[in-house]
């Protein structure tokens, strides 16, 4: 179908150490950031970035590699968030146990949903995934004794952990930063493992041509379920992380279709079905929405002198541009789908290849 996705073939592994070194270096740099940066706003943005990367990479397993476009992942995100907080607030079970329960619950739900909906294909599967997520949202909304309905759950501070001599208090953002970073590494590694394993080849075969894959003896329902299971576990992890960080959840923040759509967008914008795609997508989206939300663009325009703060335009931008990040999201999606169907990463790779080719041609021309 397209060639950019398939470049992870064994032939190209010889030169694969460069991205590996770069990734290890990036993680090392990220790991020391809190030692030098104590600005809570910067750490907050980084935590949001980690959350987006985990969400995008989690969806990527089932949507990107196995090609099953679920637009109902809010279900697993919400289950992760709700199970963790319910266990913590109602049963006083520590979140580091609750998260595992949440992941197990999401896995169980995913397998039930998967074995029902994976009989459907294409648009029917998309619609079914949305409907299932809505059923779960409405159940949570109406099961007031357990979930507190539309009012949501507000939790107290997270209890501290003592490991040996050291005690970790979840008061500052630093512990959340490290937990998030560790989860990012785990999720991205899971994507890498999927991409290069036999299982991942099965997923990609299903994505490219279901019927051909079936005729080669790949059990479609089983492998789609495995992909969804992996994806759901990491999605629940992201939900649980969000719930513990924000300490307030309600159906309209963790269970709406917006969450599902956002997970898809992170992958589409970055580059679907690639390990780094969701990372790039998350970077772009978080950077974009934060610059808009914090009114940096308007301040920049004013500083440059393009608009004066007293003028009508300046006042309008100042008031409205901070709410415009979803509008920009929408425009970005339209542009990406129309002009960069392989996402920003695929587009950049192609541009680089074209440049290299042009350089070769130019060099050959000079020789003659």
């Amino acid at each position, binding site marked *: 179908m397209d060639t950019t996705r398939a470049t992870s073939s064994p032939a190209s592994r010889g030169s694969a150490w460069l991205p590996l070194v770069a990734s290890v270096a990036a993680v090392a740099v990220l790991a020391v950031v809190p030692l030098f940066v104590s600005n809570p706003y910067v750490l907050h943005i980084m935590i949001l970035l980690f959350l987006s990367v985990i969400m995008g990479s989690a969806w990527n397993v089932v949507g990107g590699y196995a090609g099953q*476009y679920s637009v109902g992942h809010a279900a697993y995100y919400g289950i992760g968030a709700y199970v963790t907080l319910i266990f913590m607030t109602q049963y006083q079970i520590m979140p580091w146990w609750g998260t595992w329960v949440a992941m197990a619950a999401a896995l169980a739900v995913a397998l039930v949903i998967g074995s*029902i909906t994976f*009989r459907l294909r294409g*648009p029917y599967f998309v*619609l079914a995934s949305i*409907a299932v997520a809505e059923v779960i949202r409405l159940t949570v909304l109406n099961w007031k004794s357990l979930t507190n309905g539309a009012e949501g759950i507000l939790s107290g501070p997270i209890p501290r952990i003592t490991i040996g001599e050291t005690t970790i208090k979840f008061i500052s953002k630093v512990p959340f930063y490290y937990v998030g970073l560790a989860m990012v590494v785990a999720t991205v590694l899971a994507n890498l493992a999927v991409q290069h394993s036999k299982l991942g080849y099965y997923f990609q075969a299903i994505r490219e041509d279901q019927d051909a894959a079936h005729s080669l003896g790949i059990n479609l329902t089983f492998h789609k379920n495995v992909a969804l299971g992996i994806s759901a576990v990491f999605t629940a992890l992201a939900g649980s992380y969000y719930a513990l960080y924000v300490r307030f959840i309600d159906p309209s923040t963790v269970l709406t279709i917006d969450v599902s759509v956002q997970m898809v967008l992170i992958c589409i914008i970055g580059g679907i079905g690639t390990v780094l795609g969701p990372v790039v997508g998350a970077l772009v989206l978080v950077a974009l929405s934060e610059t808009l939300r914090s009114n940096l663009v308007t301040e920049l325009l004013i500083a440059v002198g393009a608009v004066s703060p007293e003028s009508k335009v300046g006042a309008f931008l100042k008031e409205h541009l901070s709410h415009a990040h979803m*509008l920009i999201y929408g425009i970005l999606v339209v542009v990406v*789908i129309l002009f960069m169907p392989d996402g920003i990463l695929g587009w950049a790779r192609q541009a680089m290849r074209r440049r290299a080719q042009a350089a070769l041609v130019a060099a050959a021309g000079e020789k003659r």
Partner: protein
Amino acid sequence: MTLFLQSVVSGLLVGGVYALIGIGLTLIFGVMRIINFAHGDLLMMGMYTTWIAFTAWKVDPFVAILLVFPVLFLWGAFLQRTFINRVLGALPQNQILLTIGLGLVMSNAAMFLFTSDYRILTTSYSSDSFRLGGISLSSPLVVSFLITAAITAVLYWFLMKTDTGQAIRATAQDREAAQLMGINVRWMSILAFGLGAAFAGTAGALISPTYYIFPQVGQPFTLKAFVVVVLGGMGSVIGATLGGLVVGITESLSAVYISSGLKDLVVYVVFLLILLFKPSGLMGKSRM
């Protein structure tokens, strides 16, 4: 018994509007095989157009249809020509995401322009009702049901009897064959998307006297339109009409006999069951 009849009748009245939304979606799907995730946002645009006409020029919402229909038709035709047309051969996933993106742009542009405040369009008859054989009927809903029925009848006549209508049906049946027969399929696609958008907008105008108007109002209607269309069989206009009525009645019966909080849940469960056991819908494989 009166309670049962009452809930069936009010379900039927609401179902008429669902049918109109579903017909628009099914028309677009039939001709282009594209599921329009921005459908509810087109409805939202219809609501705001009605609201502007009402507050600025005191135009009655039901008269405003005469404005909303052409405006939304042109908007839909524009969307088809500039965006949708480019992905007709692309992966279905990309088509879905494009319409999701367009929907995000529409709803957030509305938020930009009108803020997220809830608007209410209060007419002298918004809460009027009359009684018929022991059953209470809301006047605006009855009027909108009658208008829906009239529009559906005209559309059906258009599709069945006119040359253009037949060309649309032919395009829906087999795009390539239609093209070989000399039908301008590009124009038919533009027409179908325009009509689909116009129907969604009209539905928005019809419900504006009885609903809140806000930028995110479209999303639940998009979901409901999917249910209606799948229930009736994707691409079938009669199916969508029936599907709309069935969804309306299911909703109102489950609100009365189960719980009003769970009525949507029941609808989605029915939807999933239909998807699993009869994915071709109530009207089987018939196309339009």
